[in-house]
């Protein structure tokens, strides 16, 4: 039985991180693993801290909430403080190079990636969640590229399938090149 993996996708409300976490859950469940997904549940909908956490385990997790993060994505500065004290030393942290001006400091591996910039270049900044999802999955080796691309395509609204696929590929390659 492998160790539980704790993943957090965080940013500002409206960046689509809860959706991205749900899509990532699908990939783990397809592999026969269990996922506990929790999110900040606050009376806010746009802006402000937004986060979604996954605890991936074989069988039901003893404790379903993240408290020692193995992987962390931060897409906005507002989300930095919330995770600062729960990042493992061997964690991998991905931050948006444009919107996170002061990334967290620690022994973990930090990658500052042009996620939002790439989304804007693709013509829609709202696609940043898919780019981040792909980058994180590539570096974490959570699932095969094709397998995950299929899930992203399946979960995408029809008019945005091509955009999501492009975003997915950009995100995946961003990490391979980094």
């Amino acid at each position, binding site marked *: 039985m492998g160790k539980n993996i704790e993943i957090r996708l965080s940013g500002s409300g409206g960046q689509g991180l809860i959706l991205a976490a*749900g899509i990532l*859950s699908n990939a783990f469940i397809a592999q026969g693993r*269990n996922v*506990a997904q929790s999110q900040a549940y606050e009376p806010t909908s746009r802006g402000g801290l937004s986060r979604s956490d996954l605890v991936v385990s074989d069988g*039901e997790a003893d404790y379903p*909430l993240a*408290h020692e993060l193995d992987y962390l994505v931060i897409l906005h500065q507002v989300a930095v403080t919330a995770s600062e004290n729960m990042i493992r030393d061997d964690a991998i942290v991905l931050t948006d190079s444009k919107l996170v001006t002061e990334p967290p400091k620690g022994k973990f591996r930090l990658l500052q990636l042009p996620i939002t910039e790439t989304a804007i270049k693709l013509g829609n900044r709202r696609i940043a969640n898919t780019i981040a999802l792909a980058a994180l999955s590539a570096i974490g080796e959570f699932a095969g590229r094709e397998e995950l691309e299929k899930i992203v395509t399946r979960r995408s609204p029809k008019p945005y399938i091509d955009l999501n696929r492009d975003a997915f590929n950009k995100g995946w390659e961003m990490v391979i090149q980094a």
Partner: protein
Amino acid sequence: MLAKVERKNIQGNEACALGAIAAGCRFFAGYPITPSSEIAHTMSRELPGVGGTFIQMEDEIASMGAVIGASLGGVKAMTATSGPGFSLKQENLGYAAMVEAPCVIANVMRGGPSTGMPTRPGQGDIMQSRWGTHGDHPIIVLAPESVGEVYSETIRAFNLSEALRVPVVVLIDETIGHLLETVDLTPPDPASIIERKWATCDPKDYKPYEITKDRVPAMARPGDGYRAHTTGLTHDETGFPTQDTEKGKNAIGRLLDKLEYHKGKIESYEAIDCDDAETLIVTIGISARAAKRAIKSLRADGIKAGLFRPRTLWPFPEEAMRKAAGKAKTIIVPEMNAGQLIFEVERVIAGKCKTVGVNRYAGDIITPSEIEAAARKVTS
């Protein structure tokens, strides 16, 4: 061939609604309130498809009344609420206990008192779920710890409610209500679903509150030709009010004795590593999940820690807890309130060992490390 069950992620509140439907619930009356609203939402979406009825009432008092009406009308019925809504349901909840109307009430606990912290977790209704309505009354309270258990315990809630004609509360933390976990929603074996006992005797011999050996009188199914009177006043076997104290003693005595008589059916608990546990943790819900993690680290360091988790919170499984605490020097009771469950634990253990509370009552959860620290402190 077994039907392929899809493994998927669903939310605790959704699991509650789906469990209810799987158990045969076909009536939901409620008034939406955070953090329980997804139960009503799911019911409004799913019930019509199985021939059931969803109704949003004008408030919580009316929705509890509608649930009792539906139940007496012959339908398995439930409501769901939180915080102040649970307070409002208490008067009619007492009525349900008194007239022995089977029904299920899901209470997704939030921070209190009063309107408190609607979006934040709490476990402050542990005592209210037992003693929220006035007078001595029978009630069963089930406290699931995971999304999968919310599903199975909601099914069990309906089964107990139907078998024993007693209101059953499913007590869920906000954290579990809003958590998504991977479950396979295996539909229950139809043979395991309990239907209430309907009257089959000659209608002229029918006594709606007859004192029988199993303490559970048969119900009159509307349309079957039985005459039944229902009142919250103390009633004798005929169902009509009585001022006769001897008859009253028999009626209330049966009502209270009912749960004791069926204790074996009602009790459910989990005991982990209790056999040699010198430090026993007793807790429910998300705090029990934190305790499970804490026990693993404590055991890894050679500290003899165990967990006793009452899945049936009320009536409290006292003999089982006493047994689990056989070697205990200290019992730690983590709970998201200022100290409620600890009173029951102290009553049961009757001074035989030390008790220590780990408490949070301002909308934060209790973490595994906090429980671990408390255990290390008492063993150092």
